[in-house]
């Protein structure tokens, strides 16, 4: 396993899924990890003797400065991730202006490496072959989230040309053991649902291919990127490309649990999305899902991580092994919650 040792590092978004796992991994290999959180009482804050918690907000630059001081490397994973927001400009204020604040603070503090976590959604859907880092987008920007991440990436690249050593880590669909921070939209929630509830939903047609990255690989990729990533470059940190059909097949084989998987065509998903939207209008709680987000599911999203493999020595854990670990951890988690029959076990 690749090991590295930094003096001091800053991780933003440590209460999110990727940031949390990254901060823990960094602390475990002996780094002093600063985490910047909005709410110091959050249950999602990673706990480790080497992790030091700073209260702050990336949208307020002055609150970043104490946390970033003397840090050699910054991992900026914080972002607003969801389908819709009552105030749509939040996506841009947090994801674009927040990143600008982070970059400015990093430049001021003399940070040596700045790793920005982005999404494969910026590259967008694929055609027949796997997409690469510099391929142009095939379709227009569907969501504010994707557009905001694109604009943030542009800023990160511009800072590289100004002299800051920035690198972009591109995550595909992330899954693995750990926190349940993004209910409804994450692959983890699909796996959790399969384990705990009698009915699951799969997109129809099921031949659409997506790329799934294991959280451990993504964390390793971030460390590799910080160590060896070339300035201003973008690296896809992905996993295997798998169709929805194979995904559910593997889920059944590995978990040993047989569930009803209802195929859902796009128009029904769009109606679900519209219902979420109406619920959101009534309840006022921002949805994770809407009809636009539904359209993101009904396309091919296949990517290649060859650049990261060749340049950084990035290694992909086979999907079957990664899924086995994930399912095992979720089954243990659901035993704890007492919502699963005791006779299910991992084969």
């Amino acid at each position, binding site marked *: 396993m690749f090991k590295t040792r930094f003096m001091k590092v800053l991780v933003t978004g440590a209460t999110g899924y990727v940031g949390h796992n990254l901060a823990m991994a960094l602390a475990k290999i002996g780094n002093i990890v600063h985490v910047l959180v909005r709410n110091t009482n959050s249950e999602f804050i990673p706990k480790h003797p080497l992790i030091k918690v700073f209260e702050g907000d990336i949208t307020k630059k002055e609150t970043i400065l104490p946390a970033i001081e003397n840090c050699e490397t910054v991992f900026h994973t914080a972002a607003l991730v969801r389908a819709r927001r009552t105030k*749509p*400009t939040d996506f*841009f204020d947090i994801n*674009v*202006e927040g990143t*600008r604040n982070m*970059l*400015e603070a990093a*430049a001021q503090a*003399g*940070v*040596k490496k700045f790793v920005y976590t982005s999404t494969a959604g910026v590259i967008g859907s694929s*055609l*027949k*072959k796997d997409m690469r880092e*510099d*391929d*142009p987008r*095939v*379709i*227009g*920007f*569907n969501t*504010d989230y994707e*557009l*905001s991440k*694109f*604009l943030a990436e*542009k*800023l990160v690249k*511009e*800072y590289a040309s*100004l*002299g*800051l*050593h920035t690198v972009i880590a591109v995550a595909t669909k992330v899954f693995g053991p750990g926190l349940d921070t993004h209910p409804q939209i994450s692959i983890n929630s699909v796996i959790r649902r399969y384990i705990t509830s009698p009915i699951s939903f799969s997109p129809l047609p099921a031949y659409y291919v997506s790329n799934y990255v294991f959280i451990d690989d993504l964390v390793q990729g971030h460390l590799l990127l910080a160590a060896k990533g070339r300035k201003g470059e973008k690296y896809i940190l992905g996993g295997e490309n798998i169709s929805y059909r194979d995904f559910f097949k593997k889920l059944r084989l590995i978990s040993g649990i047989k569930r009803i998987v209802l195929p859902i065509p796009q128009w029904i998903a769009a109606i679900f999305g519209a219902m979420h939207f109406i619920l959101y209008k009534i309840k006022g709680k921002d949805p994770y899902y809407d009809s636009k987000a539904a359209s993101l599911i009904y396309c091919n999203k296949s990517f290649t991580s060859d650049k990261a493999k060749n340049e950084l020595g990035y290694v992909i854990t086979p999907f079957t092994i990664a899924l086995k670990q994930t399912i095992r951890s979720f089954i243990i988690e659901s035993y704890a919650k007492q919502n699963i029959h005791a006779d299910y076990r991992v084969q």
Partner: protein
Amino acid sequence: MQSKIYTLITGSSEGLGKAFAIECAKRHMNLILVALPGPELSALATLIKTNFPVEVVCIPKDLCKDESCTELFTEVTVLNLQVNMLINNAGLGGTVLFEQGSPLLYEKQIRLNVLATTLITRLFLPLLQQHNNSYILNVGSLASFFCLPKKHVYGATKSFVYFFSKSLREELRNSSVQVSVLCPGGINTNPAITLMNKTGNYISRLSIMNPEEVAESALIGMFSGKEVIIPGTLNYSFMLLDKLLPAFIKKILTRITMNKLDSNNRMSRYLVPAMVTIPVPAPR
């Protein structure tokens, strides 16, 4: 041996032109892509060639410049390429108060939207006539039907395209060349435009389409022989309303819509490039 037949698309590195290129490639049509010189054009060509079994010829060219249309035609004839379809897509938009817009912008708009469209159509018409089924698709705009503040020059150039296309279609009625004109509403062509489109009111936001949707319905419309193609149900109903409503109500409606569409774009701050000077980190 029969040589390959190509579709020529101008302004094909971004937005609608890119969507046209991908949509045509999906239909296994060989492409001549004309766009501003830059890395985007070759990146698109590579993407298309790796995904579809088609030939792609790139011709980087700034069609605003004098002689560039003739140069383009010469290059195509020197390469001895057969063309049976022409998509005059290159165009320059802009939502700006007339006195705030630069004279250079207006000159470019007229050169690109009017002059280049006319010259390229004229130059390539003989090539198109050599084939049994040829098509010309000119890209107009919904703006050519409405008198919109802040879209004065743009709307006028697109009215030219509309008028020109319909007249030419009549003239070529008995030839092998079919002329269609596409009149789309707002399109999320590039990130800056996508951001600006978000500043409109609810109805205008709903009418915004993605380039791939527009390109698809344009090609379907063109192959089915439509004269005027208006993509999107909402845009089509705007056109119907235009015919039904009295003029003074239309004026009020366009005024409300266009005032909301912010030309100074409050979203533009998200596009501000990185500017601070960074102290070079000391070597370790």
